[in-house]
Every structure is written in structure tokens, then in C-alpha cells.
């Protein structure tokens, strides 16, 4: 994988001025779809840890529609909807693009599937 939405959801801007609670904004150039083993137990565990609003916003940028608008609406026994969630969270992969710190405007490029989060000397 390169950068899936699960990874994006865990991340924040490393800029010292950033609040560390706001998601990075995805700029997607090259996106691919992966196949990852469906693991309901993992999914059920991780749902509570997600920033759900941030996930929906990022999913929309990557053209993933039809996701529950809140975690309360998730029916863990509905396999079809859980597989849809699995797909959006684990199988949509940003290969090239950028992650943008919305508070400072700083762009962190994604190239070859690797987000470059290194800060410059003058940003420390």
C-alpha cells in the first residue's frame, strides 16, 4: 500500500503551528485500488479510533460515496456495508499527490506512495 485512508486518518500536520487535531487535506493525483483481506474484527476495533468527519471528507475527495454519516449509523452485522467501509478505508490508495496542512498551507508531497513529512530546518 502507499497511503490508504486509514493511514491518512491517523495523521496530522507536523508543523509546530498546527493544532494536531485537524486532518491533512488530500490532493490526489494518482490513485489506485488495492485488494486487502477483509477483517471484520479489525474494522470494528478501529472504527472507534477514527476521526469520522475527517474520514468522510477524505473519502469524498477519493470518490468514495455511500458511507454512513456517523458511527452510530454503522451496522456491524450488515456485511455488505462493512465491506464497503473496508474498501474505502483500506483499499483506496494514494500513490502520487500531497497532504496539505490547512492551518499553515504547507504541502507534504506524496511520491512513489511515500508521504514526505520531513520539516525543513527553518520550520523547526
Amino acid at each position, binding site marked *: *500500500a*502507499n*497511503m*490508504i485512508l*486509514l*493511514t491518512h486518518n*491517523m*495523521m*496530522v*500536520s*507536523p508543523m509546530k503551528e498546527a493544532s*494536531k*487535531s485537524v486532518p491533512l487535506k488530500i490532493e490526489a493525483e494518482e490513485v489506485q485500488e488495492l485488494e*486487502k483481506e477483509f*477483517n471484520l*474484527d*479489525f474494522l470494528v*476495533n*478501529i472504527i472507534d*479510533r477514527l*476521526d469520522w468527519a475527517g474520514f468522510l471528507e477524505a473519502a469524498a475527495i477519493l470518490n468514495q460515496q455511500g458511507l454512513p454519516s456517523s458511527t452510530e449509523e454503522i451496522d456491524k452485522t450488515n456485511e455488505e456495508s462493512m465491506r464497503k467501509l473496508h474498501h474505502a478505508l483500506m483499499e483506496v490508495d494514494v500513490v502520487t499527490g500531497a497532504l496539505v496542512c490547512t492551518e499553515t498551507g504547507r504541502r507534504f508531497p506524496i511520491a*512513489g*506512495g*511515500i*508521504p*514526505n*513529512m*520531513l*520539516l525543513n*530546518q527553518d520550520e*523547526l
Partner: protein
Amino acid sequence: TNSRMREIQTTLSERALELLALPSENCMLLDIGCGSGLSGEVITEAGHCWIGCDISHDMLKVAKSMEVEGDVLLSDMGQGLPFRPASFDGAISISAIQWLCNADTAAANPYRRLLTFFTALHHALVRGGRAVLQWYPENPAQMELVTSCAMRCGFGGGLLVDYPHSTRAKKYFLVLFAG
């Protein structure tokens, strides 16, 4: 030899995972200094998800070519960790944190970088989560510096030494508990 190196790193990774004492499978883990993804593959094998960070772009490209399961980020742990609070059930690091003790530039202060790293690590772990960091301390002073920085950032735990009576085989693990 290269394969012997890989064997050692794999064994160290397995030991670190064991010391994490995770409550179940399907955890979300952070691999600090993940390099070419060798330790990450051990995590995958153990049934967990992981995200890896490393400062070496070349090593990360190798990880990509090996098609490891985890996503990897180019980042400098001495600058912090770019994650929301309580993102990870646990963290491991194999042969990486000694780089925090190097002062490559006049501006780089090892003590400050260690504090930045351990503060960020503490925040990134769930309450009660562990970090197991294997490394090769250069000398007792460095061991003291790293350990005391970790404690200063709110971690419980301490230093574990495998094979303490063998100079050749001796292995050091910082076993830290968050909250």
C-alpha cells in the same frame, strides 16, 4: 552476511512484539525506523496492522518494492511523529533510536530531539499502550540519556537486557508504558 543481518532483525522484531504483550490480534501498531520493512513484515505475520516511519528514502523505496502491507512515511522521529493522540495500540523500533543521539548539525541538539521524540511517542499511544525500542547504546552515558529522557516524558517502564552475560549477544530493549 546480509541474510544473517535479516535473521537478527527478524528475531529482534519478534522479541519486541512479544514484549509489547498486546491483548489481542488486530492491533494498530507504529514501527519507528521501519527501514526496508523487515520488522513490519513480522508485525503483519503476527496479525496486526502497522504504519512505518523512517528517515531514509532509499530504505523506504526498498520497503515499497517488497510490497509490505503497512504504509510508510518519510519522517524524522527527532522532529516528532505526525499522528493524532492515541492512534496506536503499541509501537516497536528495531535498531533505530541511536540515531537520535547523533548531532549531525550544529543546530541539532540530541537532548531536545530525544524529548521531542518521546513526547510525541507518548501522545501517539493509547492509554496503557507500550513502546518497545531495541537499540545498541554506544556507552553507559548514552543509555542513561535515552532512558532518562523517556522517563521525563511520562513513560513508565525501563531497560530490559537479553543475554546480559554475553558481550556479543547482549540486546537492549527500552520497554515503555504510556499512562
